[in-house]
C-alpha cells in the first residue's frame, strides 16, 4: 500500500512485520508539459536531475548526482542521468538506490533534491513525482507528487533520516532555485 505524502508528513521506514527496510529506491519521474505554440502541442525537453546529499550532523559529507554516481562508501547509487524525462507515464526516470544497512554510521540524514538542469521552471513540468520503493520487493512505500506550477527551478523533495535504530522519511517539498544541488545548499540547511 502506498502512502500519499503531503508536505511535511513523515513516514517511518519500518516494514509491516516490524523488520527494518534494508534497501530503498528513490525514484523520480516527470514529463515536459505540452505548450501551446505555433505548431500546436509540442513539448520541450526538460532535464530534471535527482541528487542525494549525505549529511553528518549539519555538515554535508558526500553527494550523489549525475557526475558522481556512487557515494564514496558505495551505499548510495544513482542509476544514471536522464536528460529528457519520461516519454510515457509512470516509470521512474531517475532513481537513487540507498542501501540503508551500509550507510556509514556517521551519516544521519540523506536529502533528496530535484533540479531543473535546463533551467525551465516547474511550471513546464507535469506529472512529476517522487516515490520511495522498497528495493527488496518493489513495493512502493510512499509517493509524493510534485504540485504543478510554480516559478521555481528546484525542489527539495524529501529526507531520509535516522530514527532510533531505523530510518524515517519526511516529505519536504520545499521550493528553491538553482540548477544543481550546490545552488540549493543554503535552502537545504534550514531543513535538517
Amino acid at each position: 500500500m502506498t502512502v500519499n505524502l503531503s508536505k511535511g508528513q513523515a513516514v517511518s521506514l519500518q516494514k509491516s512485520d516490524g523488520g527494518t527496510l534494508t534497501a530503498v529506491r528513490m525514484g523520480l519521474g516527470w514529463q515536459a508539459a505540452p505548450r501551446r505554440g505555433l505548431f500546436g502541442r509540442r513539448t520541450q525537453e526538460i532535464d530534471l536531475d535527482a541528487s542525494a546529499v549525505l549529511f553528518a550532523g549539519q555538515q554535508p559529507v558526500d553527494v550523489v548526482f549525475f557526475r558522481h554516481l556512487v557515494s564514496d562508501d558505495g551505499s548510495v547509487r544513482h542509476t544514471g542521468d536522464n536528460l529528457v524525462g519520461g516519454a510515457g507515464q509512470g516509470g521512474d526516470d531517475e532513481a537513487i538506490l540507498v542501501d540503508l544497512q551500509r550507510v556509514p554510521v556517521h551519516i544521519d540524514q540523506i536529502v533528496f533534491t530535484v533540479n531543473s538542469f535546463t533551467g525551465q521552471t516547474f511550471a513546464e513540468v507535469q506529472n512529476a513525482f517522487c516515490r520511495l520503493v522498497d528495493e527488496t520487493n518493489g513495493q512502493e512505500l510512499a509517493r509524493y507528487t510534485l504540485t504543478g506550477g510554480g516559478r521555481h527551478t528546484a525542489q527539495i523533495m524529501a529526507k531520509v533520516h535516522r530514527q532510533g535504530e531505523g530510518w524515517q522519511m519526511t516529505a519536504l517539498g520545499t521550493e528553491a532555485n538553482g540548477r544543481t544541488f550546490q545552488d540549493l545548499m543554503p535552502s537545504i540547511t534550514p531543513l535538517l
Partner: protein
Amino acid sequence: MAAELVRGQNHPLPGSRLEIRVSAGGPVIAAVTLGDEAGRLRDPGWIAHLGSPPLPGLEVSRQAAADHRIAVDLEALPEAVHRVNVLLALSTGAGRSLSFGALAAPVVAVTGPDGTDVAGYTVTGLGTESAVVAVELYRRQGAWKVRAVGQGYAGGLAALLEDQGLPRARESAAAVEEGIAAGAARAPAPPPARAGGEVRGRRTAPVGGPPGAQGTAPEALPEAPPEAAAALRPAPAGPPAPPAPPAPAASGPVDYRHPRRTPRAAAAPPPPVPPPSARPETPDRPVAGDGPGRSMEERLHNQVWGMFEDLARTTAAYRGAVDFADSRMEREMDEALADPRSRLGPGAEAARARAGERRAELVDRARAALERDLAQLTAESEVVEPALPPAFARWDSPVWDAYRVPAQAPMAVRLGDLALPEHSGLRVPMLVRLPLERGLWIDAGRASSAASPTADPHRTRRLAGELATAVAGRLLAVHPAGELTVHVLDPTGSAGPALAPLTESGALREPPATGPQGVAQVLAGLTRRVDLVRMAERTRATDALPPDVDLAGQLLIVHDFPHGFDDRAVTRLRYLADEGPSAGVHLMMVADREEAREYGPVLDPLWRSLLRITPVPDDHLADPWVGHAWTYEPPLVPAGSQVLSRVLGRVAEARRRYGR
C-alpha cells in the same frame, strides 16, 4: 490487514490456532508434513493427507479439490515438531494436469480461526513441477512464524519427501497417492479445471538442494534407492530434477540482496528461496564465481573486482566516519574551551570527556560496520582464492601443480595483491586486463613509502629482477604455446641470477641481449615490428606482412636501465612504450628512476606511460573509486619454490612440441 507475502518472506503468527486455505486452478492435493528441529521429516506418520490417520493438532480436508481448508493448532502439535510444511501436489490420475505450469497459480491464505486474514501468498513461477511446498510454519525462539516457500519439485511428491529427509520416500509417496486415490473415489467431481493459459516464469527445474548439501538433513539416505524418485516421477511432466542442483548456501531469514553489492536498478527476479534450514541467522555463505559474466573466468574476474570495489568503499565509509568523529570531537573541545570563564572548571572537564566518549562511540560503531563487511569479504576471499585459474592465482596456489599450457590467452593476469592498512590481512588480487594497455616499470630504487624504511638497496635490486622474471614467467605461462615471445635486454649481464628460471628452462627464444650492440639489435627489431604492424593495420593489409615478422605478442624486459643505453636506444624505448601496446609489443622496465635522472626530463614521459610496481610492498596505487592508497604486494615466487622453473619447463616443452 493481511500481509501479501513474496517468496521467502516471513510473517509472525498471531495465535496458535490457524486455518490455511488453499485454492488452485484445478484439483490438487493438499498435505502437511511435519519437520523436526533440523527440518527433517522423521517418519511417514508425520505426513497428514486426506488418506492418513489424523494427527494431533492438524486437520486436512479429505478430498482432492481445487479448494482446501487445513486447520492447525500449533500448541497441540507434538513437542518435537518445529516445522509444518503445507504442500500441494497434483494427483497423477489419468486426465489430470501433470504440472503446475498448466494451472493458475495456487493461492494460500493463512487466517485466524475466526477468518481474520493473517497472510497470503500466491505461488507463482511454477512450471514443470508437480509438487510444491507452498508455505511453512516454523518455530523460531518459541514463536511461530509463517514463511512463503514456493519450492517446487519436478520429481513430484516422492522427490519432495525425499528432500525433506524422509527415509523410504518412495513408499510414503506411494502411500499418499493411494490414500489420495481412495479419497478421490469418494470425492465429488472436481470442478472444471481452469485452463492455465498463462505463460509461466522461467523456472524450469526445482532449485532445492539434495539433502545433506544444505547441512540441514544429515547424510544421504541409504534406504532410499536412487531410483526412488524416478520410479514415481510422472514421466511426461518435464525434465527430471537435476541430480544435484547447487544448493543455495543461505538459510534463515531470506535476504534478497547480494551480501555485499547494492542491488541494481532493475532488480533481478528474487533469487530462489533457500530451502529451510535449521541453522538460522548465519549470513550468506559466499561462493566463487559470483560475478556477472559468460565464462567462469570472467565471473571470477568480475567478482574479484567487485571485492576490490567493496573493500575500497567499506573502508571509505569507515574512514569517513572516523574523520567525522575526529572533527566533531575537536569542534566540541573547542566549544568547551571557547568560554574563558568556564575553561578551567569541572564543567569543561566533563564536556571534554563527553566529546571524547562521543567520538569513541561513533568510531566503535564504524569499526563494527567495517568488521562486519571485512568478515564477509574475508569469507569470500577464502572461497575465491582457491578457485582462481593460474592467470589469477598466487604462486603458492595448488592450481600450479596441475598446470597445463592453456589453449587460450586469459582475459586478465594477476600482477600482485592489494591491501589497506585497516585490514592488512585481507588482500585482493590485483587483476590487470590483457593485453596490457601500459607497460610495467619495476622500480628497483628505494621504496618511497614508509612501508619498508630499512630496505637494503641491493636486496631491492635483486628482488626487482626476480619480480620481473616472475611476472614474465606468469605471462608466458598463461599464454598458449608460442603466442608470447619474451626478449631480455641485460646490457651489463648483471641480471643473470634473477633470469635463471627463464634462461634455464628454455622459455626464452634467444638468450638475453648483452652489450650495446645486442641492445641496439633487439630494439631495432622490435621497432621495425611495431612500424610494420602499424602500417599494415592502417592500410588493412595485415596479410602482406613479411614472413619474418613474429606475430606473437612481444614482451621486452629491460634490465639495468640506463647503463649501456645510448640516446638512440632511449628514443626507441620511448617509442616502444608509447606505440608498442597497440601493436602487441609490451615493455617491462626494471630500473631505478633516480639513476636515470641524468637523462633529464626527456625520460619523464616514459615513466608516466608505465605502470609502476615495486619489488617490496609499497602504497602507491590508487583505486579508481575513492582513491585510497593501496599497499601493493609483489607476486614474488616463494623462496625455495621451484614452481616457476617447473611451469616454464612445461611452456618450453609445449613450444617445442608445437614447433613454435
